[in-house]
């Protein structure tokens, strides 16, 4: 055990020493998806926003310096794509009391860095690891880490669009909620292992905790009564966010963003729940 600690310490020291070195590889930076471009054109690279959002999401130049930190209006790069998704979360939802699952205040609190009822403080990074769409890492020192990975940035990828990227902020943010309140959502990366019940996504399965529309006041998504009647799982929060984008986003949110949100929500709802399917969003009219 002592030997292991010593090795860990050496590795930690090495990691600190090389902390500011840029990553050797980056995601595909050759293009932005149609949905990313369409949303981007609604703000035309609003500089005041990214000068706010990098602080709100606690992004650091050392983590993003070869990913568009110094070229923040180039939508082919990861940092601009990240803040494009943050823009959608911050301004894109209608917050309809009659009909939305949850409100902007919930979704912002989940994704943003600030410690709150939703989670302890976070920072956002980008990773070339193709294991997954994103990850939540707890750290012994300092804030915890949400990392979004290349399949959320590559324009050819199914989830390389702003809605799916923002949906992952919710998913990983909910892992942070589970961590803050010490809930056990499973031992396979914070999910149930295998493909139990109706879930087909190996080692990425959750329960769906059905609730009605209006069951949570806006801002109260973090609440639970400790029973299955008032609880959420990471995939469920993600589906609810994506459905709110698909069905109840502001009128200016581009159709391609809504279509991508709906496709992601519907696919996730039938594949990732042990007691699924989860809710389906919207009607199946083609347009």
């Amino acid at each position, binding site marked *: 055990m002592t030997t292991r600690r010593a090795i860990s*310490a050496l590795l930690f020291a090495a990691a600190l020493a090389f902390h500011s070195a840029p990553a050797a590889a980056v995601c595909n930076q050759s293009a932005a*998806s149609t949905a990313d471009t369409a949303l981007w*054109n609604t703000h035309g690279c609003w500089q005041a926003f990214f000068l706010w959002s990098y602080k709100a999401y606690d992004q650091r130049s050392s983590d993003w310096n070869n990913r568009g930190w110094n070229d923040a209006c180039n939508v082919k790069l990861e940092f601009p794509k990240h803040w494009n998704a943050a823009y959608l979360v911050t301004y894109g939802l209608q917050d309809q009391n009659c009909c939305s699952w949850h409100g902007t205040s919930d979704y912002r609190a989940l994704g943003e860095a600030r410690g709150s009822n939703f989670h302890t403080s976070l920072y956002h990074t980008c990773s070339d690891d193709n*294991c997954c769409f994103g990850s939540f890492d707890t750290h012994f020192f300092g804030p915890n880490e949400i990392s979004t990975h290349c399949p959320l940035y590559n324009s050819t990828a199914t989830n390389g669009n702003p809605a799916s990227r923002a949906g992952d902020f919710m998913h990983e943010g909910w892992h942070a909620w589970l961590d803050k309140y010490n809930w056990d959502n499973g031992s396979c*990366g914070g999910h149930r292992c295998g493909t139990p019940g109706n879930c087909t996504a190996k080692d990425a399965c959750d329960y769906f905790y059905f609730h009605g529309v209006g069951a949570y006041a806006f801002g109260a998504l973090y609440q639970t009564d400790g029973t299955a009647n008032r609880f959420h799982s990471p995939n469920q929060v993600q589906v609810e966010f994506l459905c709110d984008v698909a069905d109840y986003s502001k009128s200016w949110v581009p159709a391609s963003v809504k279509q991508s949100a709906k496709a992601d929500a519907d696919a996730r709802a039938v594949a990732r729940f042990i007691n699924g399917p989860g809710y389906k969003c919207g009607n*199946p009219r083609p347009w």
Partner: protein
Amino acid sequence: MSRRTTRAPGVLLSALALVLAFPAASTEKKPKPPETTAPAGARPSEIVKQLATQKPPVLAGTGADATKSVAAFVDWAAASTSDQADLVRRAVAEAGRSAEIMGAFCEEAFAAQREDHSRALVVLALVGEARSKYGEECLVKFMAIPFPEKGTVVDGEILEQTALGTLQAKAIDGLAYLKSDSGDKLVFEAIAKHPSRIVRAEAIAAYLWNHDNSDKAKEALKPYVRKDELIFLDRVTRVEGEKKESFNRKLAAYLKAHPEVRPPAPTKAQPGKKPTVGEPPAF
């Protein structure tokens, strides 16, 4: 997807970090904000007003002109707002009568499938919305793309399967929207035989929606639906504009009819317990 724990408690590690952290903190500079050389533009509130007034490009021409006009229309439709939805619908309904234009849409769908998933979704939605025999030919061709058995595994799913599954689900929406014998035949086939649960689920939902979610429609689907997927016939959908009272009534009825979908109570993590490989097998 994943939650990872990198907590590494230990006296040695803590001490080392503290030793290293102090000199770093003493020389730390003010964090450098992100930057750009692009000039600052108008505020988004102004930009979206201007975008909302953009007219749809004309869908016309033959050959290369048709291809060009379709590409411009797809760009516009992808960026269109919800207030412009009827404009989109009318334009593609009109274009549905043109073999040239629908052929160009079809080529665009196949090209985008490989390069830009969100564009492919938009194009297939437009082809389906056209509700035409040329559109149907395209959707049939798209449904015939072989479903991959292997591919890149990310978060427990095979990306290539999800990509094609979500696009073929969109194609199925268009086939069901035709409300024709030939279109329905493909919908039934998808419900019974498509390897993707995403497509099977969408086919059920699309057929039911196009037949007013009637009991008769549910009965018509039963011979095709897999036994373990019969629950999809009763699945709850939140439809745009639906009031909460209406949705909540449907949800309550669904949960009453299917008590098996009620999840177990959540459980607390054991403090300090880390994921392990578990105990060794019994001797």
